């Protein structure tokens, strides 16, 4: 079996999570090569063939061109599996390859069981094992699902690649995340509001509990998207990744993107009416209650101590 890993390069840097791709390939024990539109001055630490296109020439986000570069490598290398991150780069490029190859694409793989990929369904409430029926299979890996104990080592054998194809869209630059203001990564206690707060007025309950505990308040994505809490307080993959001593998730179902941002907290309390909510997977204590009724009671008792 042969595996081709697709590494990423963004804002002038090699994205170091390529180590997760290597960890995945190690688990499968296959011959491995790597594809990267990147820079020869910043190579991944990897023992194997690296097909390298020059990012200065082909751009960081240029799907039509990256697709052609990758298809040329696939034609030459004939891998059984082509492995991406399930990321803004991976979920954009992978389906293009799947269509071109008429190959199965299995998205957001969280584990391999008996050689078969496992993916989440319905906001991670369910799991599905998927068998590919095509000779080649495209996989995208959930961030953090495959890790390496130690940093990767090695020096790749670089094979430069080129194409004459030109792009159809134009990526002109980047806008930095708006994370000024409070820095939740420095907080030891965080109380976060999720969709379960119901309406903006109820954010005050979450703030009150955070204050009673001597911590900061945060929020999950839907609450920030609704404009009820500032983006700098968002916890999750597109916000902050936090590791406080205590994390209290109020009315947060536990979407993967949220869990990725808080699951390494030392102690996690979930308050939720839905006992099956995926937040239960990481919670040390799960309080089955409506936060709108429970938070005032808890806050009052904390203040009365």
């Amino acid at each position, binding site marked *: 079996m042969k595996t081709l890993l697709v590494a990423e390069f963004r804002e002038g840097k090699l994205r170091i999570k390529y180590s997760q791709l290597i960890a995945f390939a190690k688990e499968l024990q296959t011959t491995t090569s790597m594809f990267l539109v990147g820079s020869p001055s910043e190579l991944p630490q990897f023992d194997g063939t690296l097909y390298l296109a020059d990012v200065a020439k082909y751009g960081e986000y240029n*799907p039509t061109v990256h697709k052609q570069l990758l298809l040329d490598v696939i034609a030459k290398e004939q891998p059984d599996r082509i492995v991406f991150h399930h990321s803004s780069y991976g979920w954009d490029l992978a389906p*293009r390859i799947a269509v071109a190859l008429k190959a199965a*694409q299995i998205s957001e793989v969280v584990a391999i069981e008996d050689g078969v990929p496992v993916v989440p369904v319905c906001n*991670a409430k369910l799991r599905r094992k998927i068998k590919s029926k095509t000779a080649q299979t495209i996989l995208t890996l959930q961030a953090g699902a495959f890790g390496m104990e130690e940093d990767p080592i090695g020096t790749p054998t670089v094979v430069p690649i080129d194409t004459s194809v030109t792009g159809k869209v134009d990526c002109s630059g980047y806008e930095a995340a708006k994370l000024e203001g409070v820095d939740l990564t420095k907080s030891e206690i965080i109380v976060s509001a999720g969709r379960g707060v119901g309406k903006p007025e109820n954010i005050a309950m979450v703030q009150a509990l955070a204050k009673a505990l001597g911590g900061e308040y945060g929020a999950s994505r839907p609450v920030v998207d609704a404009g009820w809490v500032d983006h700098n307080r968002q916890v999750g993959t597109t916000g902050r990744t936090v590791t406080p001593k205590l994390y209290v998730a109020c009315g947060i179902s536990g979407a993967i993107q949220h869990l990725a941002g808080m699951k390494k907290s030392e102690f996690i309390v979930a308050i939720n009416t839905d006992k099956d909510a995926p937040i239960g997977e*990481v919670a040390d204590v799960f309080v089955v209650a409506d936060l709108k009724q429970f938070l005032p009671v808890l806050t009052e008792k904390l203040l009365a101590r």
Partner: protein
Amino acid sequence: MNILICIKQVPDMESKFKINAEKNWYDRTDLAWRMNEYDEYAVEQAVRLKEQVGAADLTVLCIGPDQVKETMKKALAMGCDRGVHIADNDAHKREPLEIASMIAGFAKDKNFDIVFTGMQSQDRGSAQVGVMIAELLAIPAVTTIVDFTFDNGAIHVKRELEGGGRALVKATTPVVLTCQLGLNTPRYPTLPNIMKAKKKELLTLAVPDMGGIGACQETAAFYFPERKGSGLVLEGELPDMAEKLIHLLKEKTGVLA
């Protein structure tokens, strides 16, 4: 402008899910259904674009059994002009490439300028269909947009990136755009618009030619994840639970010292 919006009907994610008899998907009975959240942003953006440019025709497309028409009516009440329902009782078993082939089969001779859809569905969550539609139609796609402006034929979008940063991307029509949460604030249909929507065209079509594309993967198992943590579950009266929780926090964490 000629605009297509592709939406999906999904169960409310707070539902109590059960596994079906074939053990390959969730049981579809006794669920509350709604529009895939990501698609609500797609519908809203299309309606806003029509409000901006005036001359635009919005077709909303949905694949599934008869019940999906209920969700389509919401899109019509939000401001779409017409609905195209592709009748397929097996839609929930279809893979992303099959779904994309149906949509491309419908769209190929219609000259849509923009196709809006959600970046993924809440149930299957493959994040593949939008890009695949574009590839099958041989037009560009930009995924995961959180900002959209249309100015004199030029489309400027921002793609959301890990960490919260954004990539600034310029495109021209025709193009497929997949919408991320937070792109806009989807409107609630007003009562007059709900009434108006009842008179809008909602055409039901048979499954179009899929260009010979069939299933290329199969479900080997479908199950609930094991609860890894030995997390303690508190249930009962609110004051009791609050006391117990405070006790636990004192015992297990250093934060209430």
